[in-house]
């Protein structure tokens, strides 16, 4: 469904992503692990069209979407849940979810989307998506809005950060529901447990793909090489040689 081909990104003349090659299959949950600052969010932004790559191509369902603007990608079924979602004065949760559903062509009701992220519809539909929501509430509403779109590809940038432990089950359930419905999920996370729900996983360092394989092996790899890394973005030579 998604092919990332030789993708590189420079920002302020600094290399952020380097020759990334990665494929995401239909209905696949694909975790991206990596230490802070290794290019995970930048990759998400390039895929959504927020950053234009310096070189390389992004193919989605056989179409080259590298030059398409954000909303054209969304129309083709790609969406992104931000790590720190924007807040909107005067826009209610109900309006936000309806708008996402209508534009994405989804069929799940706003009420059901809220229930699935563990929020009571009666209490939230009329509230504004503004600063009165806690960080965790806002993130769950962002996830609900992705669910409402029923996208072909959901890029979730750390959907589990800032979420309390009991609510993590809701996050996992939403990801699984998306995949069951045929959506592919690119899941950026620090949580090893969450990463393990994926079908495949990739570890990034210095904007490079160090390894792509089953999530258990990637989690082990991450634990051994990245979790307490003292030389972030300077991967060991041996690891780079094996790419």
């Amino acid at each position: 469904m998604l092919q990332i081909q030789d993708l590189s990104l420079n920002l302020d003349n600094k290399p952020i992503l380097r020759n990334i090659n990665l494929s995401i299959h239909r209905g696949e949950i694909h975790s991206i692990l990596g230490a802070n600052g290794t290019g995970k969010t930048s990759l998400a932004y390039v895929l959504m069209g927020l950053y234009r790559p310096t070189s390389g191509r992004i193919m989605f369902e056989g179409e080259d979407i590298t030059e398409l603007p954000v909303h054209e990608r969304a129309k083709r079924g790609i969406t992104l849940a931000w790590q720190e979602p924007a807040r909107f004065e005067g826009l209610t949760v109900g309006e936000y979810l309806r708008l996402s559903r209508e534009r994405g062509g989804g069929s799940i009701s706003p009420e059901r989307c809220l229930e699935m992220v563990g929020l009571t519809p009666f209490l939230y539909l009329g509230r504004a998506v503004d600063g009165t929501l806690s960080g965790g509430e806002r993130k769950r509403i962002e996830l609900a809005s992705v669910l409402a779109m029923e996208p072909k590809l959901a890029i979730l940038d750390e959907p589990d950060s800032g979420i309390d432990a009991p609510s993590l089950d809701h996050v996992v359930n939403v990801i699984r529901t998306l995949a069951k419905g045929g959506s592919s999920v690119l899941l950026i996370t620090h949580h090893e447990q969450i990463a393990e729900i994926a079908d495949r996983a990739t570890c990034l360092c210095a904007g490079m793909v160090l390894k792509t394989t089953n999530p258990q092996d990637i989690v082990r790899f991450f634990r051994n090489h990245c979790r307490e890394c003292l030389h972030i973005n300077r991967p060991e030579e041996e690891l780079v040689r094996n790419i």
Partner: protein
Amino acid sequence: MSETSDRSREFDAIVEAYERSGGDPSALLDGRFASLVVSGNKVLSSNSVPGVVLEGQETETGVRAYVKVEPGTKVPFPVHLCFGVLPQEGLQEIISEFEVGEGAKVKFLAHCFFPNATNVRHIMDSRVHVGQGAEMEYSETHFHGRRGGTEVVPRTQVEVEAGGRFRNQFKLVTGRVGRLDIDLEARLMERAVCDLEVKVYGKEDDEINVKESVYLDGEGARGLVRSRIVVTEEARSEVLGEIVGNAPFTRGHVDCVEIVQGERAKAKALPLLQVSDPTAKLTHEAAIGSVDKRQVQTLMARGLSEEEAVDVIVEGLLK
């Protein structure tokens, strides 16, 4: 044609304009609602209810209105005030006095419409007195035509006695603003609370000037001054939100957001805080500029074009 039938026709026209602008005309016809309907310098109807006295006296250029809410009266339904000028040209001066007695509670819904204006001047000169422990909410919504020929000049002096509450909302987002020049000054005594909000959408060569000042003169008084202004094309706005903390333990906040769309629109925000007591605490936040990029990107990631995303954001801000 008799004067009575002239007034009756004018009343029907005002009610129709009121309905077209989204108002509920039944409130103007239902005897349970206190109401005052003014067209130009004519008082077309005036209805008082128990505990609420509404008097309108016609002058050469407008109306002198007196509104009194008896002490202790909790008015169950909003009091409706309609001020309109239907011809293309005209001057309407509303000189009003609001007296809300001790412990009373009342909400006013004011609608002002100038749908055909090419040269209409609407001046409001109001004095408001909110008694001890009383609560008054005044919500004013304007409906203007598309020609920009309206000049709106509200001047308001407010005094809120100890423990009283005053909330004022001014909204002008439908049609062209023309020229708007708001000047509101509120003085608050002990533990009194004041919440002021202005929402305006300026287009073409509209001019918007807002000056709102809150003087926290009594211990523990609190004030909030909020404004949400959007200017497009060649419209200009200048907002001065001022809070003065003159008494111990007073708290105040100025919150101003101005969105500028297009290269020729201009906006200016001036939050002004003054403190003359060391225990007073005043804060402000002002955001001025284009629509937040992250908000636009978020909505675009849901499938909206950039223009649609900006419309949704602006609509929410001015709701």
